[in-house]
């Protein structure tokens, strides 16, 4: 294959990564923005989404499209419910203290990962794509499902943006983000807002997990990479800012696709992690909210 088509393929694969990443990272950004909680267990919600998608598609009979649609609905809802429970049982009792919540979500990460290993097993399992359709380009064929992933992610992110800026619930969430105690003084039930935000963030991660599973198999350790990449995206984009997150996801996803194809992926990850550390060290005010 010539260089041009090769680059095109890398860009297209990068767009898929960017779409998945944007979904997962926007959940992380939302939770940090509104609640000031760094959710280390975010990657595990993504993994649960993928594993539950496998479980649903294994138990729902009929054509793969129907099973996948069911998974797309059920898995994020289940994960959101789990996240809401974790918020009520653990995070709320810690009074959302930043350091204590990080320790607690690390604990949550281990528990979810181990539960997945015990109940689901150490194997990677594929889920059938809802439809078989290939885009035939002059140089190579490309799975039509990947195009669907990109479009679906765009649709969900648009809906999220509309929800945050146009709906009353979004307004309440933004008010809580700006000032928790003033919001409470105006009669906003902050506890419920937090629970809803945490559930929504986890649901977005799970949705990304469901979308990715026909492309990449479901495995109990699959949450590590998206967690790291989401962190990178959210920090580069400015924690809590949805627009910054989307731009950074596009940037990181595309460069991941290109660097991963032409250079060693490990080297790419080393450079990316060091870059993020440097951004935090030297530009904390611009990229990490007012004062962390």
């Amino acid at each position: 294959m010539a260089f041009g088509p090769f680059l095109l393929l890398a860009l297209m694969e990068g767009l898929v990564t960017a779409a998945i990443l944007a979904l997962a990272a926007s959940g992380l950004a939302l939770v940090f923005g509104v609640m000031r909680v760094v959710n280390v267990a975010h990657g595990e919600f993504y993994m649960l989404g993928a594993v539950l998608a496998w479980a649903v598609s294994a138990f729902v009979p009929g054509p793969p499209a129907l099973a996948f649609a069911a998974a797309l609905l059920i898995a994020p809802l289940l994960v959101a419910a789990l996240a809401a429970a974790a918020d009520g049982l653990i995070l709320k009792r810690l009074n959302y203290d930043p350091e204590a919540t990080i320790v607690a979500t690390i604990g949550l990460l281990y528990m979810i990962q181990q539960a997945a290993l015990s109940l689901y097993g150490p194997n990677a399992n594929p889920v059938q794509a809802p439809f078989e359709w290939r885009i035939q380009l002059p140089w190579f064929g490309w799975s039509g499902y990947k195009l669907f992933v990109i479009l679906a992610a765009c649709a969900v992110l648009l809906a999220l943006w509309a929800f945050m800026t146009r709906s009353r619930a979004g307004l309440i969430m933004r008010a809580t983000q700006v000032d928790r105690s003033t919001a409470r003084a105006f009669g906003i039930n902050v506890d419920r807002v937090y629970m809803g935000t945490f559930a929504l963030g986890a649901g977005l991660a799970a949705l990304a997990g469901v979308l990715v599973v026909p492309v990449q198999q479901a495995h109990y350790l699959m949450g590590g990479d998206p967690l790291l990449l989401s962190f990178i995206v959210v920090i580069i984009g400015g924690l809590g800012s949805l627009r910054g997150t989307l731009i950074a996801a596009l940037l990181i996803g595309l460069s991941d696709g290109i660097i991963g194809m032409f250079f060693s992926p490990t080297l790419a990850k080393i450079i990316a992690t060091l870059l993020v550390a440097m951004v935090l060290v030297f530009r904390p005010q611009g990229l990490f909210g007012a004062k962390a």
Partner: protein
Amino acid sequence: MKMGAAGIWFVHLGLIAALFGMQFLLSPYHITNLARIMVLAVFAMGYNLAFGYTGLLSLGHALFFAAGMYAAGLSAQLWGVTAGPGLILGILAGGMLAAAVGLLALRTAGVSFMIVTLMFAQAGYLTLLYFGAVTGGDEGFTLSPASRSLLGYDLSTDTPRFLAALAVFAVGLILSLAIIRSPFGRTLVAMRENEDRSRMLGYNPFTVKLAALTLSGLYAGAAGAAWAVLFGYAGASFATIQYSILPMLYVLLGGAGTILGPFLGALLMFVLIEIATGLTSAYLFLVGAALVALVLFAPNGILGTVRERWARWLP
């Protein structure tokens, strides 16, 4: 109850003597386990100096542990360095890396500090994987028997190994007690309690915290190097985030900001995991549940609670 300086030293030296006596009471299997616990406790004592006393919550200590481990392991592997010099190289490697990370990471605080240290440790782990041809990657490598000798004693046999672990542990314990009881130790606690006020009193928070983190790195390096020469193995899996979490767990369980807390936490967690692995393979679940339970119900840990209720003198 009040306790004078002599009494406090008596308690801590008594623990070391009691541990020395254990080698005559325990089976070889348990002696080896106790050696492991003591090495892990050294790691946790270093973590405690940064986190418990100075208030620096790092998520990257695995990097310093791995630095010590690979400094000792690789120098043995490549140049045939023996255990004694290997240990010193490991201590230096841990301390130097901690100082380098601290120079950058200490410009941040709180959540940013946690993420920056996490990112540095992750980059270190990936670097170990990238140079897998030398480091052995995740599988690691075993040290040659020839390099595992200290002053003529073979560290792969039970008694010398136990005594070497005890020696490292004793030095670590006595040193940390001396540090915490010194004026410098008080400034560490002052940084944790109120950084602005200590700055006003004329201390430079950056240098104090850098010194604390470097000390902490020296401990972690010593523990990593000791693990390599005592148990004859070095591997990149020791640089994963899990090995940054473990010392935090030990310290939280035993009591952050107590001298004996790290040892107590390492001992209890080791025993708990040992029992749990007999029952189920899901021991990581236990680690997670312990973390959540500790931050929820006992943020002061065991000895922190003891100090609060009964023994104000506990250092």
